[in-house]
């Protein structure tokens, strides 16, 4: 078997699903959501009273708030049939050696190479709804960088945690942020002290592994003045027959002069509803970048946003969505310019194939008095066949005259001339289409750390398999 074929086979295996025995969970909550479930979660986690109050208030908001009446249909989502909390092992592991074997096996199947682990500045692996493995390289600790599971963050740094938690995305923000605020579990807590540059990406792998497990991860990242960090999140999931649900909340605070980047490779199995709220608050002369690749899931609704709070703040979004058969990728970005001389840039690329549907939905908002704002939005869609669909919903609200706003949108097809040209060099039709598609997303892929870029290209090649009917 050729090397590529083997790689594809390996990935194919994970595409088509595998799962460990699911009978060694320490605790499994009831299906469905109630005040008792929320209280139980908080008790299990031995949380302070303020967090329980926070959760219960969020629950109330969630229950009173109607479902969104825009975007993709969520009617098939059965909220009563979801486990809102699952705990795989009693406590977080300290080192790789302590990680249980079956969990390691899962990571092996995901193809995380041995060598890469050495490069990991710290691995937060979310397996089910809890951090099971967490390690921080010594030099990070020496720099005073905190990289913990969100639960440990709350326990070990209660004041820091409370100062920022829920300040970027309050529970009232939207229905699913409220749900997450009520039942959140797992995720990362990151603090980078003033002027500390974290030179290796902080990475977290996580995946779902039980039918109907709700994943409500919650991540809080604080980048103090003049500091910089790159956080990478990649997720994969095996396939199941019943719908799964993932609804995360990611809050990031980027203080004066700091830089941060948050990269995601989302590859949930195609039965997962992925409704995520991600937002960064960016202060004076600081910058935040979202790099977001959505390949999997049944329905994704995701619009990472930047609140540009003070002059000189910069927000950027670079996103890619791949919608295959039965998939809806409703993704985009929101940039809110609250202060003068703030800049934003949104680059969105989507690929629709075999009836898949990809939409760009975005917002650029400039408030009165925010003079000298610059914003540019570019949306490129690639349609691989006439059955597929691409839509663009670019909302722009400007309450100030002194601004520079650009918007471009294009829809293209893989041209016959491109295919003929590539095939005349000996590439099969499938290889030719794959090459055009990988070229299309190259501007995003080259921003990813190398191992992710490789994984990304393999995933795309896999998605393109059997394109030629």
């Amino acid at each position, binding site marked *: 078997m050729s090397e590529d074929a083997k790689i594809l086979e390996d990935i194919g295996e994970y595409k088509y699903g595998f799962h460990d025995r699911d009978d060694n969970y320490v605790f499994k909550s009831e299906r469905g959501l109630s005040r008792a479930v929320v209280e139980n979660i908080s008790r299990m986690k031995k949380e302070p009273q303020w967090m329980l109050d926070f959760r219960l208030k969020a629950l109330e908001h969630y229950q009173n708030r109607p479902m969104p009446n825009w975007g993709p249909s969520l009617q098939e989502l059965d909220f009563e049939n979801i486990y809102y909390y699952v705990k795989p092992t009693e406590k977080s592991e300290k080192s790789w050696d302590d990680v249980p074997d079956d969990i390691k096996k899962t990571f092996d199947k995901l193809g995380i190479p041995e060598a890469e682990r050495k490069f990991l500045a710290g691995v937060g692996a979310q397996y089910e709804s809890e951090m099971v493995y967490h390690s921080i390289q010594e030099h990070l600790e020496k720099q005073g960088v905190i990289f913990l599971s969100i639960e440990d963050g709350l326990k070990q740094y209660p004041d820091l945690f409370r100062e920022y938690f829920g300040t970027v995305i309050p529970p009232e923000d939207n229905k699913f942020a409220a749900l997450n605020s009520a039942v959140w579990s797992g995720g990362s807590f990151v603090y980078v002290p003033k002027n500390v540059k974290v030179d290796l990406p902080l990475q977290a792998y996580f995946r779902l592994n039980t039918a109907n497990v709700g994943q409500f991860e919650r991540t809080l990242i604080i980048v103090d003045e003049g500091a910089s960090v790159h956080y990478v999140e990649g997720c994969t999931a095996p396939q199941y027959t019943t719908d799964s649900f993932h609804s995360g909340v990611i809050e990031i605070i980027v203080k004066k002069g700091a830089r941060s980047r948050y990269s995601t490779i989302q590859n949930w199995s195609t039965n997962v509803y992925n409704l995520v709220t991600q937002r960064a608050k960016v202060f004076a002369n600081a910058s935040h970048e979202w790099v977001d690749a959505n390949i999997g899931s049944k329905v994704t609704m995701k619009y990472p946003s930047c609140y540009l709070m003070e002059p000189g703040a910069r927000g950027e979004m670079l996103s890619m969505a791949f919608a295959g058969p039965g998939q809806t990728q409703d993704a985009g970005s929101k940039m809110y310019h609250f202060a003068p001389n703030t800049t934003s840039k949104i680059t969105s690329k989507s690929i629709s194939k075999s009836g898949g549907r990809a939409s760009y939905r975005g917002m650029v908002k400039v408030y009165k008095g925010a003079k000298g704002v610059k914003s540019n939005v570019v949306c490129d869609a690639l349609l691989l066949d006439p059955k597929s669909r691409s839509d663009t919903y670019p909302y722009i609200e400007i309450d100030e005259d002194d601004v520079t706003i650009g918007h471009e949108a294009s829809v293209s097809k893989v041209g*016959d001339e491109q295919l003929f040209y590539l095939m005349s060099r000996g590439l099969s039709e499938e290889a030719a289409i794959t090459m055009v598609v990988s070229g299309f997303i190259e501007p995003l892929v080259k921003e990813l750390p190398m191992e992710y870029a490789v994984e990304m290209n393999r995933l795309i090649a896999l998605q393109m398999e059997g394109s030629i009917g």
Partner: protein
Amino acid sequence: MSQLEIKNLHVSIDGKEILKGVDLTVEQGKIHALMGPNGTGKSTLAYTLLGHPSYIVTQGEINFKDQSVLELEPDERSRLGMFLAFQYPVAIPGVTVANFLRTAINSRRRAENPEDKGMPIPEFRKLLKEKMVMLKMDQNFAGRYLNDGFSGGEKKRAEILQLATLKPEVAILDETDSGLDIDALRVVAEGVNALAGPELGVLVITHYQRLLNYIKPNYVHIMLDGRIVESGDAELALHLEEHGYDWVREKYEEVTA
């Protein structure tokens, strides 16, 4: 013998007949020039030889290496040893010249042997560097996106670079001289001359004689209204340079009418 043999070839696009019975044989090791006024079907012949899906062969044969290629896809024809240097190479944004060439080389190797692991990267780098030096190309060219924002001269050089690295047995150069200044023309022609030899048959399609000052053809053919009407040696091209195409038109007007 890797001989390209075209017999009584009729080709239509959108129901309109463009080639009306072309006969031509390009032997390995020989350089043939195909000349003619614009719109007589020269590029149609080039595209048809490599199997462009819009060009429908209604009659006749194309044989290469003693087999018909009419039922073969463009990639199969390429892997059999046919090559077309495009008049208008297509941009593939996001795909570097190096990545593209490596994929093309490996596609060919794997077609021969499914177990092939692909050309080792050091070997590929060496090959690419050598060919780029030959074509006087800057090394950073390999990292640019294929034909994306290339000048006319860069595009043509990139075509010859592909010719050099893919090592076909018959190469069709479609108006490779168009849009080139004299220096670029010389570099491209030198490249072709360096590659020409007993292993390679070449069909140079050109409107003007000037390319043939640099690439010396063994045979020259004139195409008019979908047929080859005159064949001769290099002298024929010089005659065309001096007298233009009018005499050909006059001579064959009655036949084509």
